């Protein structure tokens, strides 16, 4: 008896999901990126459950939620980085300019050039100079050393507000600078490829408050040229820098909306509990 009831509930839930998906499955022409009905498994573990999200151009979208709820996993779907995990499986669509980046004909390498990424722990390349850290991506596509490359490196470092601090040390290893500078170097490295979207996974969690403030300012600057998606544990940070916020919980997207509205007037009880610190 009990089993039957469970099955029914399960089915009902599934139905609910389906209807839910159908309402959201329309392609949003104004979105820079759009996740449609994304599910991810690691082995048997169902980590993301039918997640939908739109990322508008020239905005900062924050993803918040308790540890282990799938924020990083979700973010890594946007540039196909999750494919590097050997046991990961995904269904659903991620659109970039209304085109599914998981289509068979599409090369993940191309996607990663268009959708840059900054990681939680600054990870500049230790075997490369500061200059080469920024230039590495362009060198992969055959850009040769020279004035053109110098210009791009300079512009990227300037945009990452790092140029003034390192322009005399461009030959030094990328790991020879402070943590905050390293993180801005990583941002410069992503910018150098002139991507369309920049994904950031808790980019400030390894940094002190001053370095954090610099990066936050930088993120707001970046929005002029790129769409930014940022995962953060810090709700003040999310409310300070983002235009839209998504709240995730146990692999589901609970609420998504304008940051102001979500923080001041959440529609879902769970969101309210989370942002008021009732659990976490």
């Amino acid at each position: 008896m009990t089993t039957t009831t469970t099955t029914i509930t399960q089915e009902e839930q599934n139905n609910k999901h389906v209807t839910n998906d159908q309402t959201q499955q329309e392609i949003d022409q104004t979105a820079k990126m759009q996740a449609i009905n994304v599910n991810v498994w690691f082995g048997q573990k169902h980590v993301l459950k039918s997640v939908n999200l739109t990322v508008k151009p020239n905005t900062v979208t924050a993803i918040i939620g308790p540890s282990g709820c799938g924020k990083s996993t979700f973010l890594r779907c946007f540039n196909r980085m999750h494919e590097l995990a050997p046991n990961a499986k995904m269904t659903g669509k991620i659109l970039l300019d209304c085109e599914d980046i998981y289509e068979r004909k599409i090369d993940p390498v191309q996607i990663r050039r268009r959708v840059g990424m900054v990681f939680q722990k600054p990870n500049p390349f230790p075997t490369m100079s500061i200059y080469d850290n920024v230039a590495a991506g362009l060198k992969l596509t055959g850009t040769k050393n020279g004035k053109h490359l110098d210009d791009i490196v300079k512009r990227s470092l300037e945009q990452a507000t790092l140029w003034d601090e390192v322009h005399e040390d461009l030959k030094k290893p990328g790991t020879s600078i402070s943590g905050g500078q390293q993180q801005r170097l990583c941002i410069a490295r992503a910018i150098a490829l002139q991507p369309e979207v920049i994904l950031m996974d808790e980019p400030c969690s390894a940094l002190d408050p001053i370095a954090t403030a610099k990066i936050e300012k930088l993120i707001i600057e970046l929005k002029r040229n790129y769409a930014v998606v940022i995962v953060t544990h810090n709700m003040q940070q999310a409310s300070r820098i983002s235009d839209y916020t998504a709240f995730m919980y146990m692999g589901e997207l609970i609420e998504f909306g304008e940051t102001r509205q979500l923080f001041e007037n959440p529609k879902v009880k769970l969101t309210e509990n989370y942002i008021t610190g009732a659990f976490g």
Partner: protein
Amino acid sequence: MKSPNKQQQIQKTTKSKVTGDNIFKILTTIIATSALIILLITGYTLVKGSIPVVQNFGVNFFFGQQWNPVEGREIYGILPYILGTLTTSGVALLIGVPLSLGIAIFLVEMAPKSLRVPISYIIELLAAVPSVIYGLWGLRVLRGWMVTYIETPLSKYLGWIPIFSGNPQGLDIFTAGVILAIMIIPTIASLSKEVLTAVPNSIREGAYSIGATKWEVTKRWVLSYGKSGIFAAIILGLGRAIGETMAVTMLIGNATGPSAMPTSLFQSGQTMASLIANGFTEATAGSLKYSTYLGVGLTLLIMSLVINVGAHLIMTRVFKVKGGAIEQ
């Protein structure tokens, strides 16, 4: 007034720590010194023992090719064996290094865990096989393969190139080099595997995130990061190849005199190690021949030391002084 107090305190704390460290320091110093002393005693014995032969033949001992043990007309030149050692080791590295790196890269960057663990284990097991067993296998199996599948076709079609000339019999420099390659693969592959495993994943992810392909990540990031470690692994393999005795003795054909000059790969040769293994026990203590073997031993020891010291210098000067920044 305050600062001296503070300093004293600091000194006190460091002092108590230093005593703890001291015991460890003394122990390690003793061990390190005794290793050095053993090396020095060995060196001294070899130097002392080889004085007669060097006095007798001068530089011709090192640069001569003749080998005549007939009493009264004795003449000993060891150039063929020095070159034999270098050639067989060179062949071993040429074949062994790419294979070892290929294995290491495959295991770390490509193979699923279900393959990685058993293959790594088998490779490490190969390092434990006694060299005489490699020699036996070489005689019974490898020699035949070499003659049939490699040496005969090579000499048939490329025989006009000096190093492939001659009539392949299988007991030659090439076969010895191949068995050495097989013997150094476990060393180089398993050490390189450790080196590649130690490359932080964050580096790979960073590289992927700027649109590098798997091959580019391996070549430009992983191998570049592991460069010095891989270099060290190769030097260890080279050390093993230079000193390896038993398997080489069984397969190299053991030529002496000018015919042992490694002019062709398909020719019997001799390495310094195999020369000593073949003849030392038959030489009477105090004879010129006896002194010759000690001289060969000394040369081999010096060669090994030079390679190790040289490698050390390269590691510190080339790989480290630049602070890890390697221009691409």
